[in-house]
């Protein structure tokens, strides 16, 4: 095993979803897979939590959803970032960088 998979760090799921969607609109399964792949299997997102997060983000106006045909001609719910979502992604990314830098300094000290 290349490494144990763990749950997503508390509070970062939103950031991961926003980041995944910043490139292109995706459907739920795709987002989950992307998080798993890019983190090289370190983060494994439970589908229930994922769907729950979508609903929450959609309600707060960060995501918008629409039903689209997939490559196999099925309809699937695609999620995309709204303008507000873009802003939130930028803000949370800065915030994350600040926090990790602080933690890194603490660990080095």
């Amino acid at each position, binding site marked *: 095993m290349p490494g144990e998979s763990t749950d997503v760090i508390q509070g970062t799921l939103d950031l991961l979803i926003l980041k995944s969607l910043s490139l292109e609109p995706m459907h739920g399964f795709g987002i989950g897979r992307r998080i798993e792949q890019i983190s090289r299997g370190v983060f494994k997102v439970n*589908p229930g939590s994922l769907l729950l997060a*979508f609903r929450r983000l959609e309600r707060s106006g960060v995501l918008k959803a629409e039903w689209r045909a997939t490559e196999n001609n099925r309809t699937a*719910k695609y999620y995309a970032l709204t303008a507000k979502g873009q802003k939130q992604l930028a803000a949370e990314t800065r915030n994350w960088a600040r926090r990790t830098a602080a933690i890194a300094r603490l660990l080095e000290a």
Partner: protein
Amino acid sequence: MALLRSIRDGLRGLFRRRAVEAELDDEVQDYLAQATRERIRGGMTPESAARAARLELGSVAAVKEEARSGGWEANLESVGSDFRYAARSLRKNPGFTLVALLTLALGIGATTAIFSSVNAVILRPLPFRDADRLAVLWTDDVRRGLHEVETSFPTVRDWQAQTRTFAELAVFSFDNTVTLLGGDEPERTTSSFVSTRLFPLLGAEPLLGRGITAEDQQRREPVVVLSYGLWQRRFGGRRDVVGKFLSLDGDGTASKGGPRSVRVIGVMPPEFFFPGPGTQLWEPVTSYWRLQRESGDRFFNNWRVVGRLAPGASFSAAQVDMDAIGRRLAQAYPSPDPDFPGFGVTVVPLLDQVTGKNLQRALWVLLGAVGLVLLIACVNLASLQLARGAARGRELAVRVSLGAGRLRLLRQLLTESLTLAGIGGAAGLALAAAVVRVLAAAAPPGIARIDGMRVDGTVLAFMAGVSILAGILFGIVPAWTLSRSNPNDALKTGGPGASGTRRIRSLLVVAECALAVVLLIGAGLLIRSAVRLQAVDPGFDPDHVLLVRVAAAAVRGPAETVYGRRLAALATLTERLAGVHGVRDVGAVSSLLRRDNPDQFITVEGGAGGPGGGGTGQLASSSVDPGFFSTMRVPLRRGRLHSQGDAVAAVHLIVTSEAVDYAGPAEAAVVNQAFVQRFFPDRDPIGRRFYLGAPPKVYWYEIVGVVGDMHRQGLEKGVIPEYFGSNLGGSTDLVLRTDGNPLALAPAVRQEIRSVDRTLMILSVGTADRALGALSTARRFQTWLLAGFAAFALALAAVGLYGLLHYAVAQRTQEIGVRIALGARAPDVIGLVLGEGMALAAGGIALGVAAALGVTRLMAYMLFEIGATDAATFTAVPLILAGVALVACYLPARRATQVDPLRALKTE
């Protein structure tokens, strides 16, 4: 924006449920399909790919449940479904549900009923503006130990001028008996003389017309304000009563001036009462006939004072302020006279004055007691829930394994108990409403404001609060325990953590027994007090005595003629009544019983104690006719009783008393034994003299006889020194000893009185027995209520104990079977079960006794002749509880002996 969206989506979730559900389903299915396809692309067969995908996703229902749980509507929805589920589950167990509802309805109903009395008497504000800022001010006669005495005009004026803690003071007289003339027949009622500032100070606006103003006072015009009750009753609520003239007369004693014509200027609203609930008329102080004479003399302390605290001042600050003023006045006006009341001041918050501290405490004690009962009921229900939970183990375990979270389960179980509590509370409210109606109607006299008891918003809120609290209270322990149990164990053995719930149930039973012991001890102490009270010899024989209160109509003429005629009329009347068939003896007394605390000051010639040979404390005086003591069977201890001649002489003496000098003649007096013990502990009292008033104007009495002591203030009050004169006037109690039922003679007696003297008003007819009993109605009321609560608590504790052991025996059937198979005999098995039960009961008793030792001190003042740690009660109650516990344990124990070892072992 986000909020709007959230509301919109939530509402859509609630009302377009199917569409939303379908979308969610689509999304999950899509997820599954993609996961499967991905695996097929990776080379798996379609079947194994589908399986792997499903494994990855987990339970579809659980995923959907989790996704749904995000919105607010999900909470609302699941509460709804929890309630539906709860209702179903309760319907499935009608036995449990019925018992639980009954217990809750009784518990909540009783608590709510008692609370509504607390609400009516204590919590609901008095019908005055900012009533919690009002206080009554009394003179405190430190030197003679007389408390709450009235104050003189000059002193009140000084208070008003010097106080910094009271914004305003107003004077009023206490109930002054007047006769309302005109109309069909004269009516006896009470009026109060009030200063012009009284109504504005209380913040009371008349319903009709106006209040008493400074102009009325200046013009000295005789005006009057009517109570709502009198207006309705006597004047049919006619609005044109304002401006009409009424004719008022005194109470029939000639001393209060003649009949006077007064003009009605206003009517007060229905809720207004002041100073007493019986006050029907208010007149300006300037209508008081002795105002001129009293307004400049500090000796005439006839006035009561009510004050409104200045902004920011507290009652204790006011007391300090008034103490300082009192000291200044004492320095400014030193009086060597031992009869002068002095300048001490007591400030009493108006609410305490109206309801009395003791009554307030008694009501809180009752509320506490009924709260304990409810607590026991809750504990019992918790225990029942646990027992039921054991049986429901499988159901709960299935729910857990289907993905119900612990919190979800907890909520589900709590919803169930809250549903129960809600229904129970509603039933309890209906019960309370009925009880309140009965209590308010049959309110014992002497409990101020209890007739205003009703179910209002405060009571409703209280009931709702109590129900919810009860629901949580009896739901939380079972819900916590059951939701924690491991579904694996539950599914395997069919009972979740059986030993765990039994341990908790045992603790609950101990708590129940302890609470029941506390209540039983409280009730026991009151019952013992009541028994002691029953054993008190009243000093007279109230059995078979008809008590008729009559009042002579006011008669005009010179005082001597009026008194003399009235005395003669009374003698004729008693003689005629003695002739009524069935009447054995007849006597008359100014008042057989008394509710007030008499404070009278006398000076005894050569007597013991007190300055100048005087004595005081509580001293009562009454007037009696020659037949009174023999009719009431009060023994004559020494000397002789009054004769009719004494009475005639007394009338003459009273009429001329203004002129009596220090060495003047004396009225013949009979005294009681307490009087003799107080003033002549070691001397013969016959022929001794004492006087009222201060030299040179005094009124003399000479002791001619000594009679036994009578408890005329009710059995619980001690006997006080008394003396009896013989001038009967105004209102009089006629006592008639009868052969049979005294009330059966009432019509004949009424008729006889009418035929002798048409002008005589019959105020009330009853029996001496009832009248004496009425003095302790409040106590009886308390005792019975508390005893009822305690009995209920005992029953609940017994049921709890029984239920637990019953369950324990069922659980240990196999173990008991093995024991029997190995040779244990019935007594051994019984001992085993009894041992477990009685150990719990013993624990409860020990805890309860310890708690009671702390709690009963609160009710010490309610006890009569026994201490709050009365040994008999503290011994008897544990024995009673142990006895009941033994019975409750014995039934399951006997069942245990009937266990068939073969059957028990086979079920293994």
